[in-house]
């Protein structure tokens, strides 16, 4: 009964749709009653804001897919990139922005943020990023901790962020589900969710889980404990998936009743989503040898790792990461603050890029998210000094298309290609210069930040009536 009670409306809808699609020729008139686990029971309620047809003329464009257009033009229409190139059509009534000497880029996507779950002010009462009560909490979802009024969202937007992935922390081996949001304030987190973006599972290797639980005299207290604990859970997930697959097959054949459906385990639902390829694995991991262990574990149980996060030693394993098709989400120069970050080098991102593997610049920080362009600049410069030539338009892929790939949203955003979302930043100068700042930011074609217009600079509820409200940040 419990399974039925927990079945959401979305689950029901999916069940009927699937049954209709798979209906065999000689099927009975009424489709079989199949209980299914809802894939998106808390769907996005985000709606793009009104967008004016906008043409930007004369700017240097980094399109996010590795191309550069000098003195180019782009038209945003209907929330999408309608045209981009040396010249584009300018319809009557379009807002025309002259941008000679300015730069236009694809919006920045941060694949690793804790905005909302570790919001400002960082008081204990707001600290909702780690459900550190068990090494395995894949049942928790970061979105249920997100405070939509985090002032950090406004700062991220002003830094040119157009989408971000909010993750649980790394205290646990299985931290829970991450969610992709837009830095567009809403009254609920559902109003900020990127429509249709897949969920992720946050995993962690290394020091954090073994420290958090080892200090309580619990498993894991060692790296071998980390792996053993995780393998047991993956084994449980495989068995759980088998039970559900078996039940579904029988139910579709009309030989199982709804009450035969297995009891739902929310934790194992998440892992089953990973095994089915629907949920992406975003894996906190610093050391190369531990990444290798995580890859071996993924092969043992039959899932894919989408990206290693922090990944300060990816440069030691870049060839493998390329072969496995795993992205690395990295800082430009954080190193040395904990033992597993001791071998961090400033050439990491450039070396991963040079090996042909997928390189992403991430923040993991409410300040860093405001200046990811600066992090990419430093990484590009470090690469050049090592003799690795990197064009700026190529480096911009670290900030947009590659993180979009790492979040499963590259078909919708991440580059300024016709038909993709008009997620666009207009910069005051070459965006890898320390003297450049975003002048305007469009999300789905709507102008949501304008440095010169206080009416286009959001103030979170928390800041209203406080000493910093309304100040230029």
């Amino acid at each position, binding site marked *: 009964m419990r399974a039925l009670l927990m079945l959401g409306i979305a689950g029901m809808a999916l069940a009927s749709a699937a049954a209709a699609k798979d209906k065999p020729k000689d099927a009975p008139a009424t489709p079989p009653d199949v209980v299914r686990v809802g894939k998106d029971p808390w769907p996005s309620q985000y709606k793009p804001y009104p967008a004016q047809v906008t043409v930007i003329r004369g700017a240097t464009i980094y399109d996010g897919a590795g191309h550069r257009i000098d003195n180019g033009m782009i038209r945003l229409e209907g929330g999408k990139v309608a045209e981009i190139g040396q010249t584009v059509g300018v319809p009557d009534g379009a807002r025309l922005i002259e941008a000679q000497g300015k730069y236009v880029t694809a919006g920045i996507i941060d694949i690793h943020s804790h905005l909302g779950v570790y919001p400002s002010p960082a008081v204990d009462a707001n600290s909702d990023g780690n459900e550190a009560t068990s090494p395995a909490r894949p049942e928790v979802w970061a979105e249920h901790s997100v405070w939509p009024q985090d*002032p950090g969202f406004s700062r991220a937007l002003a830094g040119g962020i157009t989408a971000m992935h909010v993750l649980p922390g790394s205290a646990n081996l299985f931290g829970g589900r991450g969610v992709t949001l837009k830095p567009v304030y809403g009254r609920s987190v559902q109003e900020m969710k990127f429509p249709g973006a897949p969920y992720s599972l946050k995993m962690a290797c290394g020091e954090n889980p073994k420290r958090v639980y080892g200090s309580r005299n619990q498993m894991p207290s060692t790296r071998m404990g980390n792996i053993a604990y995780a393998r047991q859970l993956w084994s449980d997930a495989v068995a759980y998936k088998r039970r559900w697959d078996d039940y579904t097959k029988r139910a579709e054949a009309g030989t199982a009743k709804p009450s035969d459906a297995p009891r739902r385990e929310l934790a194992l639902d998440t892992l089953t989503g990973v095994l089915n390829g629907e949920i992406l694995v975003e894996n906190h991991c610093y050391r190369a040898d531990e990444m290798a262990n995580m890859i071996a574990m993924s092969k043992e149980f039959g899932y894919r790792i989408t990206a290693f996060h922090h990944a300060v030693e990816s440069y030691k394993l870049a060839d493998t990461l390329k072969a496995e098709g795993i992205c690395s989400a990295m800082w430009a*120069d954080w190193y040395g603050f904990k033992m597993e970050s001791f071998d961090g080098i400033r050439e990491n991102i450039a070396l991963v890029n040079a090996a042909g593997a997928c390189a992403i610049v991430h923040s993991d920080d409410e300040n*860093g998210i*405001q200046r990811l362009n*600066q992090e990419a600049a430093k990484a590009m410069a470090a690469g050049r000094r090592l003799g690795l030539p990197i064009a700026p338009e190529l480096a911009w892929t670290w900030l947009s298309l590659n993180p979009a790939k790492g979040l499963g949203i590259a078909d919708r955003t991440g580059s300024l290609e016709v038909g993709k979302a008009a997620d666009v930043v207009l910069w005051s100068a070459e965006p890898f210069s*320390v003297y450049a700042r975003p002048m305007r930011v469009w999300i789905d074609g709507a102008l949501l930040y304008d440095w010169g217009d206080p009416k286009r600079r959001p103030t979170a509820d928390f800041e209203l009536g406080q*000493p910093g409200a309304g100040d230029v940040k």
Partner: protein
Amino acid sequence: MKRLAITLLLAGAALPAAAAPIAITGATIMTARGETVIEGGTLVFDNGRITAVGKDVAAPADATVIDGRGRILTPGIIAAASDLGIAEVNGVRETNDGSARQSPFSAALDLSTAINPRSIHIAISRMAGITRAAALPDAAGGIFGGQGALISLSASGPTLTRGRALQYMELGETGGRIAGGSRPAAFAQLANMLAEAQRLALNPAGFDRGQDSGSLAKRLDAEALALVIDGRQPLLVHVERASDIKELLKLKARYPALRPVLVGAREAWLVVGEIARAGVPVITHSLYDLPDSFESLAASRNNIGVLHAAGVTVAIAPLGGIGGTSPINLPSYAGNAVAQVLVPGGKGLTRPQALAAITANPARILGLADTGTLEVGKRADLVLWDGDPLELMSAPVAVWIDGAAQPMTSRQTELAQRYKALGRTDLPLQYPR
């Protein structure tokens, strides 16, 4: 005249200060003295000191000449707050001498006893153009953290420029927590410690007799604080909220020789008049803009620009609260203070002012009178850059400290070289070095 390619200088270990003078010619010299920038200038140094600097300076006949054309020459960068030399891996307790929660002493703790010249971070920071730093303690067992040290990052030493150079203290939320749970508790501890220090200074022999039973003031701590109340050491105070800053400034009435320096000071711009009138300098970060605590609700990147415009001496330091904060990024932190001017309504610094905020100003605040600017007689702490020193993509091509050319290698560069080309060879990658 000997001509020496920079690449030669960079090879191998640090060279001791050359016996003959060295002249850097044709460089854009940002002196950090006022707004003075010399295009196509020459700087000569000899025996560790700058002997000439200007547009029409001729290189001495016996000088080694370094071609600075297309390069920018600046003073060495000074990190006004750091854990350089005192913490190797911040999160590994046994390698971190910055805090001492269990110690019965607080103000007496002398960080110079912990400085490790061979820390990997010294070489890494030096390559980024950092030549001097203040190594500061954290306060943990009491609101006073102890006496910070001023260090040189030179590979050839000496590392300690001055020990017992300053006292560090916590007020505000952190100070309140350490002192027992409230701001009044922190101010009570402060009042008690300073009163005890004064009593000790007036009558050292009688100190132990008149002490309250259970007093928190150990003799060694009181001796350390005696240096603070008579102004021999500056008192660096971490404080953020405007009201806490005002309360701290009141101390000057009771202890006129006190030399407070505000550290953090996210809400300083709200009380900029009081700070300017008191003549108190500020060490802060250029990137604070989030209300990340209830004592920083007014945090704004305009803070530095407002303070500077009011005449307050401001140093930009790699303070906490900014993820990944590091001395190596000081130039870009300064550059961000310049960019802030561009934003409508933004307040910031000019490029020379921003450079001064990481060179001349920290030198002045920390009492490093013979560093921080390119002037005759100052220490030859120099950085030659391949571009605008405040830009993200620029880097030093040469660094001198006390006139000694510094090696441009670190553990990081060795790791990068080792893993630059991956793949299987006759021996594991761990053999070549």
